[in-house]
């Protein structure tokens, strides 16, 4: 039974890591707090739902479509956020809060408040040797989350473009002095972040019910994991996602499903109080 709990926790955690990765990349490169992140994930989910319902598109084809659509959506968001004045971080937070309201109500009027679910592809698979089942949604989650993390890691560590992104994350002014095209990096961050969101959306629609009010919860999850990992640290995100997934699964097991929402909220407050620059972030040495 513990095997099932850990399996649930890790697939949930991998999903949280995927959701957080797009947010972390955007925030790391542009320092824009995207409060509409959860609504974008939901949008991807609703898009997948609409595709599977109206056009009978099989699940795996919705993924590239949603990735493209959400990358475009993120591009539009980038055009808006670019125009925000000082103080940038706070104003971008309020601006994306407004965008979240727009998206939330747009989805409410288009899809109504009924709970929707993207149909799963196939039945649960029993793990040999253990009394645990892996549902197809969980299998997709684990595979795609780990795959996306690996792909992002390779992009950042092994390519020149990734190096430029990392430079922008670490110190924007110094990167600009070194010749990194900052504006192009911001654009790239939004586009890559958007495609990660587009990957997460259909998965979300398959494993949890889609309803327009669920966006803020997803945003809080992304923020908690990002703050845990530290600004600009990508490898900590997978670990952070797993820890959050474990914490929530245990809270549900011990307290019941309704306490789950409290976990991410309380964790966020604790992280903000304790180490807002990132729990796993290396301690900055004082410059002599």
């Amino acid at each position, binding site marked *: 039974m513990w095997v099932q709990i850990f399996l649930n926790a890790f697939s949930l955690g991998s999903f949280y890591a995927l959701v957080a990765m797009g947010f972390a990349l955007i925030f790391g490169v542009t320092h824009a707090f995207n409060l509409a992140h959860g609504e974008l994930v939901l949008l991807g989910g609703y898009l997948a739902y609409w595709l599977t319902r109206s056009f009978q598109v099989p699940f795996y084809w919705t993924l590239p479509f949603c990735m493209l659509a959400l990358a475009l959506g993120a591009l539009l968001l980038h055009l808006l956020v670019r125009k925000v004045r000082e103080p940038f971080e706070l104003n971008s937070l309020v*601006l994306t809060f407004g965008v979240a309201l*727009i998206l939330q109500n747009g989805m409410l009027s288009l899809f109504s408040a009924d709970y929707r679910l993207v149909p799963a592809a196939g039945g649960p698979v029993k793990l040999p040797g253990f009394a645990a089942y892996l549902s197809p949604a969980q299998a997709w989650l684990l595979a795609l989350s780990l795959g996306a993390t690996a792909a992002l890691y390779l992009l950042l560590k092994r390519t020149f473009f990734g190096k430029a992104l990392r430079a922008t994350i670490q110190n924007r002014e110094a990167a600009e002095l070194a010749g990194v095209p900052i504006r192009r990096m911001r654009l790239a961050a939004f586009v890559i972040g958007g495609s990660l969101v587009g990957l997460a959306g259909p998965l979300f629609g398959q494993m949890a019910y889609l309803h327009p009010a669920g966006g*803020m919860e997803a945003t809080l999850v992304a923020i908690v994991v990002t703050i845990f990992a530290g600004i600009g640290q990508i490898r900590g995100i997978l670990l952070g996602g797993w820890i959050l997934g474990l914490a929530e699964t245990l809270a549900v097991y011990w307290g019941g499903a309704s306490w789950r*929402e409290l976990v991410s909220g309380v964790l966020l407050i604790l992280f903000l109080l304790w180490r807002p620059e990132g729990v796993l972030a290396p301690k900055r040495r004082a410059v002599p």
Partner: protein
Amino acid sequence: MAPGDSIYFRVLAMTCLYGALAFAWNLHALTGVVSLGHAAFFGLGAYGSALAVHYWKISPWWGLLLGGGAGAAYGVAWAVVFRNLRGPYLALATLASVQVPQVIIDNWESVTFGSLGVVGIPALPPLDLGPVRWDAGEDPRGQYYLLLGFLLLVAGIHRAAISSRWGWAIRAVREDEVAASAIGVNVWGARFQTLVSSAFLTGLCGALYAHLIGLVEPPLVFSLHISAVPLVFTIFGGRYQAYGPFLGALVLYPLDQLLFHAWLPAGHAMVYGLVIVVAILCFPQGIAAWLQERVKSVWS
């Protein structure tokens, strides 16, 4: 529909309530804090009053004060726990802190009726003021006058927070905390006072709401919408003017209720999001500031 019809009084009454809510929110925002979690105070005020009247059988008028007190207590918690946070980190913390009372109330079914909510909340009993009988419970006109009075009270406090000596301290804290502290302004005091009074007044709004509507449930009074509304009205109307938040409420709320509700019955709150986006990008000081500029340029 004739001008005497009760729908106009109801819309005006709610405009006054939301205007007061916006004033209360801006009271704390004047110190430079953007709070995305004022729904916590509102919900605590609504539930505090509803449960107190339900269990202790006190008059709803006392329930209002208790609701305000519940909000103020949570405000004290914020002031202590979040004392070192600033800017976007503080905004995120306020957003997350709505979850705490919401989930607790949602789950503590034996006391708070959980997700069923509290129904049958008694309306405010009529007051006998000498020769005049003021029925703020059932009569829309009476409700309107009560909320108008409440609005004027909160507007007065808000104006004091801008134009008095206290207001100058608040402004100093907003513009440069370190410099303000260096010249002797009590920064912690200014932030604490504005937060707790804002929380108390917001709780009062929530309690009034509970007794006017007669029903509270967690997703209704702790909703993001309640947190967003004072933000939208204030940013639209003008953050640093004495009448700014109410101007936003006066323009946007009737527009939303009477016009957009008819066009988009489900997603009419979208207009608030649009207002935020346009205001942040084009006139972050609010239309009141823009109007002031126009008037000044015409006058001189």
